[in-house]
């Protein structure tokens, strides 16, 4: 360890596992989702249909990672409020301290690190708000996705019983009028296509989110010189000891 630097733990092993599970799920979800939306590669025409199952495999992969996302989201939602390590919701409450910190971090970013008037050892308000936005987007993807999924279970039956489609209807039918409101229309009746359009567009919002997330964490690593990028791998970063004392 560099002299004068102190190690701070920022992500527990559970948080890191969730992070990387989400990372791989995201890649699979986008790759398969784009194929489902508009198949972008062709299968060999010479092969008979019985030998291939390309769309079905893509849908299978998409649904499997969706279910993994569902479960990690439930875990994240629990940790958000009840984590014994760090409760993120405390950082998004609009208290004077949080608002001040949020803008201090924002100023640090837009002044290209010329001003850094906050404690960078713990998870800051700006990053937590950003994290929260991601999980809200993801939650919306899950609800719209499950609505699109249950659309194909018209008989009300599923391999695990009738409770599952019924529950999905109760949990996700609201996305139809809500998506209709988001998409807008010259007709007042909501249609399932609105859900599909919204599900597809939110994917692009999430991709934009990911681009900035990666850029920003790399930027922090370069400009702060505190090893922030290591948080996602080793769970900890390093801050100057005197600096920590000063704030």
């Amino acid at each position, binding site marked *: 360890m560099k002299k004068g630097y102190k190690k701070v733990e920022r992500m527990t092993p559970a948080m890191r596992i969730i992070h990387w599970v989400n990372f791989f799920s995201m890649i699979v979800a986008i790759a398969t989702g*784009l194929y489902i*939306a*508009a*198949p972008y590669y*062709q*299968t060999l*025409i010479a092969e008979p*249909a*019985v030998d*291939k*199952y*390309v*769309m*079905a495999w*893509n849908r299978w992969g998409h649904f499997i990672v969706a279910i993994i996302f569902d479960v990690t989201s439930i875990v994240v939602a629990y940790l958000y409020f009840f984590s014994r390590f760090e409760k993120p919701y405390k950082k998004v409450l609009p208290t004077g301290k949080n608002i001040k910190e949020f803008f201090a971090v924002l100023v640090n970013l837009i002044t290209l690190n010329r001003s850094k008037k906050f404690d960078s050892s713990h998870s800051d308000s700006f990053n937590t708000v950003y994290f929260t936005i991601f999980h809200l987007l993801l939650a919306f993807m899950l609800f719209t996705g499950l609505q699109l999924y*249950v*659309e*194909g*279970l*018209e*008989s*009300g039956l599923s391999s695990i019983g009738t409770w599952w*489609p*019924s529950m999905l*209807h*109760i949990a996700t*039918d*609201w996305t*139809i*009028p809500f998506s209709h409101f988001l*998409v807008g*229309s*010259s*007709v*007042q*009746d*909501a*249609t*399932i*296509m*609105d859900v*599909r*359009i919204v599900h*597809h567009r939110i994917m692009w919002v999430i991709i934009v989110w990911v681009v900035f997330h990666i850029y920003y964490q790399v930027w922090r690593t370069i400009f702060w010189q505190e090893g922030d990028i290591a948080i996602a791998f080793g769970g900890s970063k390093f801050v100057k000891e005197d600096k920590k004392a000063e704030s």
Partner: protein
Amino acid sequence: MADDKIESVKSLFTAKSAKVETNKGEKYYENLYAQCRERLDNLKKIVPVSNNIKIKEAIEEEGVSRRDFLKWASATTAMLMLPASFTPLVAEAATLMNRVPVVWIELQDCAGNSEALLRSDGPTVDEIILDIISLEFHETLMAAAGHQAEKQLEDAVETFKGKYLLFVEGSVPMGLNGQYGTLGAKGETFIDHLHRVAKDAAAIVAVGSCATFGGIPAAAPNPTDAKGVMDVVNGKTIVNIPACPANPSNMVGVILHYVLTGQLPELDSLLRPKFAFGYRIHDNCERRAHFDAGEYVEEWGDEGAKNNFCLYKMGCKGPMTFNNCSIVRYNEGVNWPVGVGRGCIGCSEPDFWDKYAYERPMANANIKAPTGGVEKTVDQFGLGLLTAAGIGIGIHAAASAVAGKKDKGEA
């Protein structure tokens, strides 16, 4: 209007959508059978008021054999999701169809649904039955015009008060107080016309995409502010039979269900009969295997098209469209859009022209003029830019004022 929206949201939350109960248990069907028997016996006692054509004669005249008629009866029984034991009742109900008076009005439409019934070269049993129903009023078909026609409508509404089924074809133009559409010698607006005839109807059956969800007249930019019947008429039982045109089988199905049971069929959250709109086209599509295999038609007339591959990449909307086309098909099961190799355009879904019919996958459907229209874009972009500049000037001026003060203080 706001109440309607709340109602439609409520109905979505009650999870009435999608789930189709195909088997309701023996006891239910036994009761229903007894109920139908009684209903048909009562109907038999009524002498048809204006229409004395007998179905048996009509069918023979059109060259349909009795065997074909019975085949039709069992197919229709299956379509209505009733057990096979109901087949004789369905056949009997068909012979009693002229006991139920029907008033058919047309609003903002192309008469395509009427055409679909009337202009086929070989009439199907469904179409013959629609010929012999007690059609008391139909602008396109009747000989009367002007004041005479209006008199006829008034008579029909008066005579069959509370008993007739009102079929509506076409959307309702709500813009300019309804002045986009007027009819008759008095220049009555479509809105008033609909309300007047709807008031005394036993139930309203909206046929075709225009009458159900506004259809093509309601496509962007919807100049006439067209709406479907269910968004205009309140407090009435409404059945929607969307599609462009609506399948005659489904129209007959609804009337037959009404004749048979005295009730309207079970409806989903968009008021569509579940027997017809409970399942997606995709679920029973003959090209479904090619969808799962990833075998798609890439362009019209290619090797995939010759091999009947899936039309998803050509924009087929079968996976998102609820209708029974893939089972019932059109013209007595002759063929249907996917069968002829041109994909589904989702014509039975709300807002289909803007959101389904662009003939490419949804993700590639960027067919509107950039950002919604050339002039519109320029106007809105200009206004936005001006606003941004104004805000910028404001911030700069305020910042300058603050900074200026500081300098003075220092000096």
